[in-house]
C-alpha cells in the first residue's frame, strides 16, 4: 500500500527502487529521498499503440513517471483526494481525475459505446465522460481527485444505485451502468426538479460520488 492520506487533500506515496508509479504532471508538491520525475510522452503504460489510442480517445492526461527511493507528496488544485485500493477489480475513472497510481496497475481505455451502444455514448456525453474513459485493472492503489469530499456507495445485486452524472467520480467491480431519464412534461415546460438524468449502476461493486456537482 504505497499511498497514505496525509489530509483530505494531500497524499504521500512511498517510492521504492524497481517500482514505478505514474502521476499527473505537476502534481508533486514535495518529496524526500532520491526521486526522479520524467515526463511520460505516452501518457501511461503500453507501447506506441496505447499512446495513439489514448490520444485519439482524448484520455491522454499528461502523466509523469515517478521512480527512485523516497517519499513523494501529491496534491492538485486543492481538490479532495481519495485513495482507492484495487484487488483485482477494474476501476473506471476519467483520466483528468486520476492523480497518481501504482505502476503495477494495468491502464487501459474503454469505449463507452461498447457498454450500451448508442445509449452508452449519450451517457458519456451527459456525464461529461466523453466517449472514452480510463480503466485501471490489477492489484494496487490509485489516488483519485474530486471536488469536495467523496463517499463510497456499495452496489449489490438487486440494489442498484442512482447517481447524478455530474457528481459521479469513479466506479469499480462488475458494474453495468445505464442512463435513466426521468424526463417528464415538467422538464419540458421548465419546471423540472433538476434531476432529469441519472446514471443507474447495477451489479456488484462500488461507486464513488463527490459532494458537489461541479467538474474539476
Amino acid at each position, binding site marked *: 500500500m504505497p499511498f497514505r492520506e496525509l489530509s483530505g487533500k494531500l497524499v504521500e506515496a512511498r517510492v521504492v527502487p524497481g517500482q514505478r508509479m505514474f502521476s499527473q504532471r505537476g502534481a508533486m508538491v514535495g518529496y524526500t529521498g532520491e526521486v526522479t520525475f520524467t515526463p511520460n510522452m505516452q501518457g501511461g503504460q503500453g507501447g506506441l499503440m496505447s499512446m495513439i489510442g489514448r490520444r485519439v480517445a482524448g484520455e491522454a492526461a499528461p502523466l509523469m513517471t515517478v521512480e527512485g527511493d523516497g517519499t513523494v507528496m501529491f496534491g492538485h488544485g486543492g481538490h479532495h483526494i481519495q485513495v482507492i485500493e484495487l484487488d483485482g477489480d477494474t476501476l473506471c475513472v476519467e483520466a483528468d481525475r486520476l492523480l497518481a497510481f501504482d505502476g503495477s496497475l494495468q491502464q487501459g481505455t474503454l469505449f463507452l459505446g461498447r457498454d450500451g451502444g448508442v445509449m452508452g455514448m449519450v451517457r458519456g456525453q451527459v456525464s461529461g465522460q466523453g466517449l472514452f474513459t480510463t480503466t485501471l485493472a490489477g492489484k494496487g492503489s490509485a489516488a483519485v481527485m474530486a471536488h469536495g469530499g467523496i463517499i463510497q456507495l456499495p452496489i449489490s445485486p438487486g440494489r442498484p444505485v*442512482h447517481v447524478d452524472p455530474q457528481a459521479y467520480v469513479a466506479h469499480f467491480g462488475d458494474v453495468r451502468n445505464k442512463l435513466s431519464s426521468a424526463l417528464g412534461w415538467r422538464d419540458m415546460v421548465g419546471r423540472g426538479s*433538476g434531476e432529469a438524468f441519472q446514471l443507474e449502476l447495477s451489479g456488484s461493486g462500488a461507486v464513488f460520488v*463527490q459532494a458537489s456537482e461541479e467538474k474539476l
Partner: protein
Amino acid sequence: MAQFRLEGTKVLAVTLGGGGDAVKAKNGSMVAYDGEMAFKKMSGGGEGVRGMVTRRITGEQLTVMEVKGQGTCYFADRAADIALVRLSGEKLHVEASNLLCTDGGLRTGTSFTGLRGASQGNGLFTTTVEGTGQAALMSDGPAVLLRVTPHTPLQVDPGAYVAHQGNLRQSFQSGVNFRTLMGEGSGEAFQIRFEGEGVVYVQPSERNTLGGEV
C-alpha cells in the same frame, strides 16, 4: 419520518421509509440514491398559492424539489459543509441560499428582515422553517454555533450569517464614520446585532455584500 444522517461533513444522507415520507431539498442537489425515488419541483416552495405569490414578490426564491420514495438519498451542493438542526416546534430563520434540505413535516415561509437583508446581499426577506423534524443547513466551511444570552449580545458580519434560532431580536448596526467615507474603511462597516436568548450559525467565509466593500 425521514432519517437525516451526515456522511462525512459534506454529504447528507436521508433515509426515507416509503409511504408518505418526503423531504424538501434544494433543486438539483441530489448526488446519488438507492431504492426508488421520485423528484418533483415544488411550485414556489411555499404553502399554497399564497406562499407562491409571496415568494415571487419577495424574491426569496427557494427553488425546492420534493423527494419521495423508499431508500437512501444523498444530497450535496458545491462541496458546502452541512450542519443538521433538529426542530421541535421552534422557528429557524435561515438564508434561502443556505438551506439544503428540510423534513417534509416542516413548514417553510418568508419573513421580512428589513435593512439587514439588503446588507447581506440577500434581499429584504429571509426564509423561516417551523415545525417538528430535521433540517440541513449548508455553509461555506464548517458553521460555528454561537450562543446569545441576555447578558452577551452578539454582533455578526452580514456576509457570514447563516441562520439563527430562538427568541432573538435583531438589529442592524453600522460603524460608518468619517474614515469610511474617505475610503479608509476597515471593511467592517455593517453588523447584525442579536439580543435575547438563542443561537446563531456563522460560516467561516463571507458572501459578497454591500457592507464588505466599505
